[in-house]
């Protein structure tokens, strides 16, 4: 029921918020007790910044505490149900004393009644962004396949993509613009460029909040790039958290195994797991032994 929010408006507000790739929350009244202005089904949309950007709970009284809880929900990703008691001053004080958790909230007001509100955080999908060199690349192909299997929303930025497995979105470009792509803290970026564009791509990514930036390169190419990036003034903090050479140390030989080591690195980073990475002196991609193509 969308008593106070018309369905098309609500849907378009939702998709506007989703397109911003920032967390937001929906708070819906699921039950009312006593005399309340809000009815079951009333809802509000709360932005990342804590602004009510759509809907109503029947008045301003309950919004403050609901927004507060919604911000906690956006931070930890957990939905919650709370009861908001809209009561007179004396009861509110007694309530504060009694309340044990965040489930019961007492608001000193003349509105009256109690609302049960379901607060659901909406976090942007976790994305895996692959920056490709252009042309056929078995590693890129396997990274896209595995990332899709893992449930990532997969975005490929590549000037000339040649892929069997379709990613969720392709941006045909040889530059990476973190702002335009909305790269944020729930995004992991794997850089598979092969030379010329390395430094420019990494420099651009140093200005993003990506959770993970991994770079596939030989030892010598990596050294050269690190020097170049320092001379361009890229902060050491970024270089320190750059996963390069990207991938867990599993002895990967084939392009598919390299992709596997990269995705394992991404997953471990997602869970803040410290795992053995490839040493800086790592061997580079070898021709797979034993199995040729014919």
């Amino acid at each position, binding site marked *: 029921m969308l008593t106070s929010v018309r369905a098309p408006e609500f849907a378009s507000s939702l998709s506007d918020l989703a397109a911003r790739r920032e967390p937001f929350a929906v708070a819906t009244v699921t039950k009312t007790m006593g005399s309340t202005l809000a009815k079951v089904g009333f809802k509000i949309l709360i932005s990342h910044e804590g602004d009510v950007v759509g809907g109503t709970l029947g008045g301003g009284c309950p919004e403050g505490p609901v927004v507060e809880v919604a911000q906690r929900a956006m931070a930890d990703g957990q939905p919650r149900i709370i009861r908001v008691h809209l009561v007179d001053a004396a009861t509110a004080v007694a309530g504060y004393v009694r309340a044990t958790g965040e489930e019961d909230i007492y608001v000193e007001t003349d509105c009256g009644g109690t609302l049960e509100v379901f607060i659901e955080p909406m976090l942007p999908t976790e994305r895996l962004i692959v920056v490709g060199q252009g042309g056929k690349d078995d590693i890129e192909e*396997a990274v896209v*396949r*595995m990332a899709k*299997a*893992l*449930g990532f929303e997969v975005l490929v930025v590549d000037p000339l*993509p*040649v*892929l*069997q*497995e*379709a990613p969720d979105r*392709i941006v045909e470009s040889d530059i990476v613009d973190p702002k335009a792509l909305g790269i944020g803290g729930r995004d992991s970026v794997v850089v598979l460029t092969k030379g010329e564009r390395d430094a420019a791509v990494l420099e651009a990514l140093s200005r993003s909040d990506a959770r993970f930036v991994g770079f596939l390169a030989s030892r010598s190419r990596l050294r050269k790039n690190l020097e170049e990036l320092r001379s361009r003034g890229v902060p050491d903090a970024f270089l320190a958290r750059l996963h390069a050479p990207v991938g*867990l*140390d*599993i*002895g*990967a*030989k*084939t392009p*598919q*195994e390299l992709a*596997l*080591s990269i*995705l*394992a690195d991404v*997953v*471990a980073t997602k*869970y*803040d*797991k410290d*795992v053995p990475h490839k040493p800086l002196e790592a061997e580079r991609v070898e021709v797979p*032994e*034993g*199995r*040729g193509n*014919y």
Partner: protein
Amino acid sequence: MTGAESAVSAIVLAAGESARMGRPKPLVPLAGRPLLSHVLSTVRGSRVAEVVVVLGHEAERVRREVPLDGARVIVNPRFAEGMSTSIRAGVRAAAPASRAFLLVLGDEPLVASATLDALIDRWTVTGAKILIPTFHGTRGNPVLLDRSLAAEVEAIAGDQGCRAMFPDHADEIAEVAVEDPGVLIDVDTEEQVARVDAALESGEPLEVIADRIAPARVHLHESKASPLTRGPLPRAVDVLAVAHDLSSRNEPFAIATVVRVVKPTSGRPGNKAIVRADKEVVGWIGGSCAESVVLAESLASLRDGRPRLLRLARDIGLAPVPEGMVEYVMECHSGGAMDIYIEPHLPKPQLVIVGDSPVASALAAYGRLLDFRVVVVAPGGDPAAFPEADEFGADMEGFRDRVAPGSYAVVATMGKYDERALTELAASRAAYVGLVASKKRAAAVIESLREAGVSAGSLARIRSPAGLDLSGETPGEIALSIIAEITKVRRRSATEIPLAPASAPTKTEPIAIDPVCGMEVEVTSPLRLNHEGKDYFFCSSSCMNRFREDPRAFLS
């Protein structure tokens, strides 16, 4: 070009009168759905850019009864004049932007989507004008035609298919070998309908069904029909066909290719030969001068899994030899020199997955992607949930035989039969045994195995929880951590089993020869059969099963 845009139009030919059936053929029910909708599922599952369906006989009824969503439907009023009119109508109706046409017969319901993609891929890469799928050497359907032949399509007359064009374009035809017997199976009679229907109802994977009802002239996995017989000098393409054949049967072999010559020599650059583990040589690499060396080095490459580069010359040690190259004296008088590159092709490693759980399904998908031979054993499970499995076992019978030495095995049964599977695996020669279970459950399982008398050594081999510790939570993440651990074990180990190194210092066990593939097998192998009083040993369960089916074929 992205995956979705192949610029190929599928033209589904479903206009003909069904002379031998009592109703419009597209509507014949198979497993509860009309025949045509099976064909459309295949087409929709491929990368074709658009689907054109050509109807004719009882077009309105077909259109009413078959969901044709997303397809461009055209009706060929001249269908009675023969198939050529329908092909023409379909080609004319295809989007102008399409660069090729895939002529899909409306009465071949068992073709796999991957087969259509294989044709499209080959067309993209080679630019051939006509692409024909073959199954074990027999040509089938659908055929892919390049748009440049559109004008000639107009000229085909009567009830001929596009085959009428083949003689004029013999040089532009590419045969695409596929492991899909569906390309040969149509439903033309009530009897065929009944067989396909029963098979589809059984819920078995398409390949199994197609295997079973493939026409008699195709001998599946029949060694006599394979091109391995020694004959006159095979052309390079034949050598590659043999390679494909051996590879699809998961048998080891090496390819030796002449890459450079200093004349006079009998070999020429590009000459190549295949050396099998049983020392059989197929092909040509400069005759007897070179053969013994190439044979020995090829066998060595099969043992250590490494490619090598040889130089055969009359006088050696005179000129500097490039790094990594080994010189040999050429044992004949021609006086020239040949460089030969030898590359081993080893059977895929085997991934055995026990269980019918989300982790098991995800693992099967990764296994396929990383080029493992995937064996799934899931009692009570649905084979359809494991489309990536090369082999599916619906019960634990014969489980131990499925676990070839050197297999990587993962038990993810959600507790249903962990003990049973692990007991069997403890006695196997698997290279990796992993258990997916909570800590508590794993401890209980291990304890019960210990009580059942499984040795401490065997128990210590069980990795639990299986997988690198990435803290993953979802089934996909857990499966990823397991396949990463397996890859690590595999790449860190010195050699790839099952090819026991011939010179391994631990070789104390007597060696037997697998009568099917000719590989050396230790006689302690659990893969053994007694036939007429004699024991035979096998490298893998697939060799053993082939022997069991027809021992005489391998005992000549």
